[in-house]
């Protein structure tokens, strides 16, 4: 994915939201998938061919994306549904969409005063990696990389100031 946007003066202000977003993501994986996420410092984004997106509108505008490879997306669905990976089928896209939706909802609920004034779009899921995302978000993406069962997952928040 190639994010498109402009650097914004408010970017620094949003840096303190990174821990909140990390916590929001960890809680979703712990409660819904019974999995602990671990830090990932490797910056390799190859093979990230599943992207879930949820838009934020209102007092906070932007987009949250969750990206991973197909194996991780299927494993997420498997753990959420309590099914063996071979029985997941096409449910993986619905599953990662719901993961992104819960991360976005959990994140905005953690920001004092924002919950009532920020709405979420339904999740969208893209499979494939050869695309560019053009959003109104004008801040550089705040990215968190974590490992889910040793598979990289990237959560990005882009904000429209």
């Amino acid at each position: 994915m190639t994010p498109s946007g402009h650097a914004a003066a408010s970017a620094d202000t949003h840096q303190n939201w990174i821990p909140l977003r990390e916590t929001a993501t960890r809680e979703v994986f712990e409660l819904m998938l019974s999995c602990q996420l671990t830090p990932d410092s490797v910056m390799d984004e190859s093979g990230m061919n599943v992207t879930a997106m949820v838009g934020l509108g209102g007092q906070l505008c932007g987009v949250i994306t969750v990206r991973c490879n197909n194996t991780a997306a299927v494993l997420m669905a498997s753990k959420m549904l309590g099914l063996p990976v071979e029985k997941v089928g096409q449910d993986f896209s619905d599953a990662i969409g719901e993961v992104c939706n819960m991360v976005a909802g959990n994140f905005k609920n953690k920001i004092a005063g924002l919950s009532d004034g920020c709405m979420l779009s339904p999740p969208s899921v893209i499979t494939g990696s050869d695309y560019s995302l053009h959003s109104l978000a004008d801040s550089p993406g705040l990215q968190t990389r974590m490992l889910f069962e040793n598979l990289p997952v990237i959560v990005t928040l882009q904000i429209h100031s």
Partner: protein
Amino acid sequence: MSIRALIVDDSSVMRKIVERSLRQAGIDLSDVLQAGNGAEALSMLKDGAVDLILCDINMPVMDGIEFIKQLPSIENAKNVPVVMITTEGSEAHVVQALSCGARGYIRKPFTPEQVKEHVVPVLGGKV
């Protein structure tokens, strides 16, 4: 005593997760109906009664708030407890849902224990 539940959510994965959570919470389910939006759920309720409704808020066609507003017009659905399960955690949404007749409110993400905590009280003596 086993119960008949209706789960309303536009995500089929989430419907399955909610059903799984109910079973993990020890709720004895005789039957589980699933609907993708409020309108579909109302149509199902016209054909048969349920003991419990678990409902998302943000859905296409008819959202969860409009659905619970229309429930009293369905003979089979009068007095059936509704518990909302949604990512919308704002106080305004909680107040709106409860004032429209919801008996409980669970925020996603959730655990089977949280589902039990909210569902068992509204079922009264049925479990």
